[in-house]
């Protein structure tokens, strides 16, 4: 995995969210159509379905609504992924339906996104769904947000209406954790300000939607401070024909934070053993250093006990460790969360048992205020809980590191994924005073 020197093409992952008739699917259709990412057979298929269901008019939403039930009911059921590219960037779109199961779908579609587009109908302005989607984007710490004020043609391209909606947002944005917000007036149906600058909005000097997607800076979206390496798979060749491999013992995984260098000291957690990186092994030859999110195999100087679920860390920016945790969760299952119930918790590469010891609060989606001590968390609720795990976790606060600060809860028996969790920052970093790890 060598890093190319000149102008590589990178990938931007973005999520589109809006309520039922905000025109999300139309917007995606328009992006694909105007950036010439649609192919003739896709257009033919659209025209065929237009004859059947659309009274002869092409419905760009049919591009993303791929399942039969979706086309029949004119709705989007599940997260759909779409791909397109311009000479500057590749894009992965996750399109999430706005009506039923919205929290569940949006969390699925947006968890690894660099950017979220919240669609607002210019006629309706900010509604509860817009607030909810923005709140989830903030909770998931999506670094960039675009508020697309759609159907601006239906309010006669009026700047006052655009400003009104922007100030509606600006009233609650300070209570959220989104740093980069952009507002764009557009008409997905007619293509204004999507790919081409609209001649109807001379009062708007910002970029088009695609222009912004192509240029937004995402280079610093990964965590590069504080080495974290959850061991995924122990790499030990059986009966290798190459005698040099007889003693090979490597730890394979994806760097979940920071940078590691050959020759540096690392500590294995939770055991606390210290060793030195002998070699960073890859199929393409050894690396001098590896960084988040590269996948590598690390060999250590010493023969110590390391297995899946352990974490290698570096001496700087230490994580927390503990079996009593506080976290925000999005509840995703019809069976509500109850205090005292046991679940399986998957965090990085380790799965442990976890008991919910307290439900501290539930977020009120209208005011964003926490309501203390609710009885339960129901489907689509977001709340703060306290957990006790059967083994200590080595973790970071989600705000610091998405990969080491997140977990899912799994219901034993059905094996359903029932919650997405974001850990609060640890009260204190792990103690190292009894080791020689501190340099």
């Amino acid at each position: 995995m060598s890093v190319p020197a000149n102008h590589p093409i990178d990938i931007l992952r973005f999520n589109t969210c809006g309520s039922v008739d905000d025109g999300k699917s139309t917007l995606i259709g328009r992006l694909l159509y105007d950036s010439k990412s649609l192919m003739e057979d896709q257009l033919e298929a659209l025209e065929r379905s237009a004859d059947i269901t659309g009274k002869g008019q092409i419905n760009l939403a049919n591009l993303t609504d791929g399942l039969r039930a979706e086309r029949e009911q004119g709705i989007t059921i599940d997260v759909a992924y779409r791909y397109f590219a311009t000479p500057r960037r590749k894009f992965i779109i996750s399109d999430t339906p706005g009506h039923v199961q919205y929290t569940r779908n949006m969390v699925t579609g947006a968890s690894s996104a660099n950017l979220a587009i919240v669609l607002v109908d210019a006629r309706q302005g900010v509604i509860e769904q817009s607030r909810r989607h923005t709140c989830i984007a903030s909770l998931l710490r999506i670094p960039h947000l675009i508020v697309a004020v759609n159907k601006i043609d239906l309010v006669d391209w009026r700047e006052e209406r655009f400003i009104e909606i922007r100030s509606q947002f600006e009233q609650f944005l300070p209570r959220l954790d989104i740093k980069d917000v952009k507002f764009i007036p557009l008409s997905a149906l007619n293509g204004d300000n999507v790919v081409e600058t609209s001649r109807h909005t001379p009062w708007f000097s910002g970029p088009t939607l695609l222009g912004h997607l192509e240029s937004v800076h995402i280079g610093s979206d990964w965590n590069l401070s504080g080495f974290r390496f959850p061991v995924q798979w122990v790499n030990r060749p059986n009966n290798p024909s190459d005698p040099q491999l007889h003693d090979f013992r490597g730890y394979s995984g994806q760097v979940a934070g920071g940078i590691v260098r050959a020759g540096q000291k690392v500590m294995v957690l939770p055991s606390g053993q210290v060793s030195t990186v002998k070699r960073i092994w890859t199929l393409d030859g050894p690396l001098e250093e590896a960084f988040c999110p590269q996948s590598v195999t690390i060999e250590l100087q010493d023969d110590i006990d390391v297995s899946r679920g352990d974490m290698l860390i570096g001496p700087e920016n230490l994580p927390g460790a503990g079996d009593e945790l506080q976290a925000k969760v999005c509840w995703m299952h019809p069976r509500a969360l109850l205090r005292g119930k046991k679940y399986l918790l998957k965090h990085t590469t380790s799965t442990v048992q976890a008991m919910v010891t307290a439900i501290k609060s539930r977020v009120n989606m209208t005011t964003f205020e926490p309501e203390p001590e609710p009885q339960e968390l129901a489907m689509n609720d977001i709340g703060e809980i306290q957990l006790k795990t059967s083994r200590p976790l080595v973790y970071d606060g989600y705000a610091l590191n998405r990969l080491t600060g997140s977990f899912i809860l799994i219901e034993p028996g059905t094996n359903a994924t029932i919650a997405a969790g974001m850990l609060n920052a640890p009260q204190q970093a792990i103690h190292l005073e009894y080791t020689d790890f501190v340099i």
Partner: protein
Amino acid sequence: MSNYYLDHLQYLETEAIHVMREVAAEFERPALMFSGGKDSICLLRLAEKAFRPSDIPMPFLNVDTGHHFPELNDFRDRRAAQLGARLIIRKVEDAIRQGIAVPAPGEVSRNRLQIPTLLAAIEEFRFDCCIGGARRDEEKARAKERFFSFRDSFGQWDPKNQRPEIWNLYNARLNPGENMRVFPLSNWTEQDVWEYIRREQLEVPTIYFSHRRKCVRRHGQWLPVTDLLPLKPNEEIHELVVRVRTIGDIISTGMVESRADNVDDIITEIAAARVTERGSRADDKSSEAAMEDRKKAGYF
């Protein structure tokens, strides 16, 4: 721009390696589906990247319809041998003889019959997970697929009730009899696949490159003339310079007229293409929801 930066292929690669290692760590008896096609060729390289210097810790599985291009099967066998992998082949032919797969009256295509053949192989070897090379950009039912796609004990996919998939935390837990299909190339496009083949200098079967072939025009496509696809009255043979863009059965794979005889030319051709890859697959055109229906029944 900092040096700590991955370009799009490196990003897709590390994502896919992570997925493959999760499979090796979380499942008891995984298999990797290898047909010899371009997507599964990328899967093999990713498996090498994920697991070397160890052996790839799972056998390769292929469902042979008996209607494969001979070039493809030769390539498949040779590549598996090079990697020292165990290659398991289960034939639709045998499944029909054993009554596992039953053709409808007059059914010539082996496409649907792959499903019971695959499910029987999963049962025979008690595979709990099959890694496949499907991509979300191929087809709109696939656009709704997860990386870890849960199948019930009948092998069925339920698109309305999929497990939420969050961050890179994959829920791999199964009850007995259930099965997972895992798609490490979910986020790859056709263009990415060819760019990866170029970067990694991977060998691909010769039918991807332009060559002379006897074809017949049928349903708007150029189909290869073989013993399995005899001419109908009024049809005539055309000798054309063609290649395949996607490989299905020899009786349903449309050949595209092309002069692209190397990987660079193919990448240029795809970049300029105005038709999708699966536009040349008759099996997807049978109805608007052809792929969805096959997937629900247990297709790859």
